[in-house]
């Protein structure tokens, strides 16, 4: 029981840190900061998967942790910096749609909403000990990612929001799904760098055609009278 208790507490700490990383992506000014916070989130996902793997004696989760480490912590940042060009990461977002304290408070509210939405699911779930921690944390990350896309203007920040959403979906699922087929696992893991590559190249094109990457301010397409 002591080890289960320790595992739950550790998993809870990793989940809390991942929520903090998601919070950081919403408000971090520098693009490089958002990238580092995404890496932190992915590290917490790996750590959580490792704790769950040790505690539930599941080899599959060890693979998940390793694959996450390799793809999200190592491959995705490399691919992104290569695809968008290193210059983009020096950008800062100076004016925000919402002021940072307001965004933080709204994010706290969203976290509460995500937690209450996940409660019926957690209660119905078939006695998985870590579901109560991971599922809300994953859903919170999804909400935070969506909020990031909504309030940030820079392309890289919106991309980090998307990646945090994916990371969050996996965070929630490692507690409830224990045996994705190997093909699905590898394909889902490889899918993230590919998505990062394509979106990164798109950011580079936007930068070269329009001169900046403030995608939130591209509003030419609308019904014109």
């Amino acid at each position, binding site marked *: 029981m002591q080890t289960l208790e320790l595992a739950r507490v550790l998993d809870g700490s990793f989940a809390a840190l991942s929520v903090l990383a998601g919070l950081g992506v919403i408000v971090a000014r520098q693009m490089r900061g958002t990238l580092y916070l995404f890496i932190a989130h992915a590290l917490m996902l790996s750590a959580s998967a490792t704790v769950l793997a040790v505690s539930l004696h599941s080899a599959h989760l060890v693979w998940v942790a390793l694959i996450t480490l390799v793809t999200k912590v190592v491959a995705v940042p490399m691919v992104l910096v290569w695809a968008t060009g290193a210059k983009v990461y020096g950008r800062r977002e100076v004016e925000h749609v919402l002021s940072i304290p307001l965004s933080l408070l709204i994010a706290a509210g969203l976290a509460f909403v995500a937690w209450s*939405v*996940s409660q*019926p*699911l957690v*209660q*119905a*779930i*078939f006695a998985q000990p870590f579901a109560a921690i991971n599922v809300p944390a*994953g*859903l919170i990350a*999804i909400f935070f*990612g*969506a909020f990031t*896309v909504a309030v940030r203007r820079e*392309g890289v920040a*919106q*991309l980090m929001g*998307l990646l945090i*959403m*994916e990371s*969050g*979906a*996996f965070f*929630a*699922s490692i507690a*409830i*799904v*224990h*045996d*994705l*087929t190997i*093909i*699905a696992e590898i*394909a*889902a893991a490889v*899918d993230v760098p*590919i*998505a990062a590559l*394509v*979106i990164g*190249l*798109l950011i580079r*094109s*936007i930068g070269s*055609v*329009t001169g900046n990457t403030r*995608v939130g301010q*591209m*509003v*030419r*397409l609308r*019904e*014109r*009278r």
Partner: protein
Amino acid sequence: MLLAAMLILPATAALLALVSRRSAPWVTLVASLVVLWLAVVATLTVITHGPLVAVHGGLTLDALGALYLLLVAFVGVTSSLYSIGYLEVRHRFATRTVPRYRQYHPLFNLFLASMLAVPLLTNLAEIWIAIELTTILSAFLVAYEDRAEALEAAWKYVVLTTMGAMIALLGILVIYAGVHHAGQVPSWAGLVAAAPLLPPAVLLTGFVLALIGFGAKAGLVPMHTWLPDAHSQAPAPICALLSGVETSAALYMILRLYPALTHNSGIPGANAWYLVAGLVSAGTAAFLILQVTDFKRLFAYSTVEHMGIILTAAGLGTAAAHLGTVYQLFAHALTKSFCFYVAGLAAVTLNTQRIKGNSGLLIDSPLVGWALLLGALAIAGAPPFAIFIGEFQVLRAGFAAGQYLATGLLTIFIVIAFIAIVVQIGGLVFREPTSGQTPARTLPVSSVLALGFAFLPVLVFGFYLPPPLRQLIHQAAALLGGAV
């Protein structure tokens, strides 16, 4: 082997297209023709012998999947035929940007392969990966013309649909966990079998997440904001694929969740979810068509509307309504691709996509004018075209089932959309040609051929359905109702 070949072939064609630029269009055309032939053979087998299984259960094909597979294959053929001539014309008359010609055909083939994978894969998580890949692979197809508007459209498209895909990922994984825990294989058949045993909260949470997520990809309101932009800025053959088949892929996923949702006793209002989602989309789109200024955007909003109609039809609940659902899915893909082909030709003729300030297309270029008029009538639901049959079936089934409110609303929305489309396109097509218009260009032969091929099913299926197809539709509708 048959099923695997359908996936390997476009992938090989992509590689070949990457290597040789000159033969890329022909390689694509040949590959898509072979895929169509394979799809027809597979479908006939499914109709007579039941679901196909291949690669140790990694690929399966049942009736509903076969229907969708046929659509992808057919629209793939017409689209690759159309692109041969169309890209040349746009390329020659492109104003200032250099399009990404080298990447077009490889991406086209990979995009086609990912859409073919959706009905073929067995494992739910793998199907999600295929859907996510369709977005990623079409990002640069939408941004083909390197203009700021096209890039903006591509960005909105990728970001909003990827957001949806991530939300849907959690939904699919929740359902996956549930099905696995109930002891079934995590495939569509396994889902239907496990449905009565799943805890309602698990199924409902997974379904809502999948509805929001895949709904964003299908263009359901209020996640539809990317759709008019992406479907108007992409080149016409890509629009046909996006509007006709890719949104249908997401809708296919939502529809395949329907039998599981209705067979679980703990979820009382399963049909209501589909009804409300469908009516909201259909209604909003119908009103939005009234104020549209660009005819490609008009067709894009019409896609949103039809997605709504199909969902509403599914939510009506009876077997007759399910027949209408499946038929509408089928007819919409065929008709919408035709509409976009003609819209592409009209854009080439008029050199603009605006409706206002242009008219008299019938006189200027009779072929394009008549095709546009017929396409508008077809998509709006006029007889004797296919969509009319589908809508009529749905409405009749709805009134027969006693769902007066929902069916009444649906009728009103369809009528509003009909009026809006006809008025808008009529304004473009009739009356005297506006002076100062550049003379009509010679239309590329392959595009006109593709237009003709696309028109045939739209017209023919309006009053004659070949028996195998009729059987397929019945079997698919039975699957929708929950048969195993």
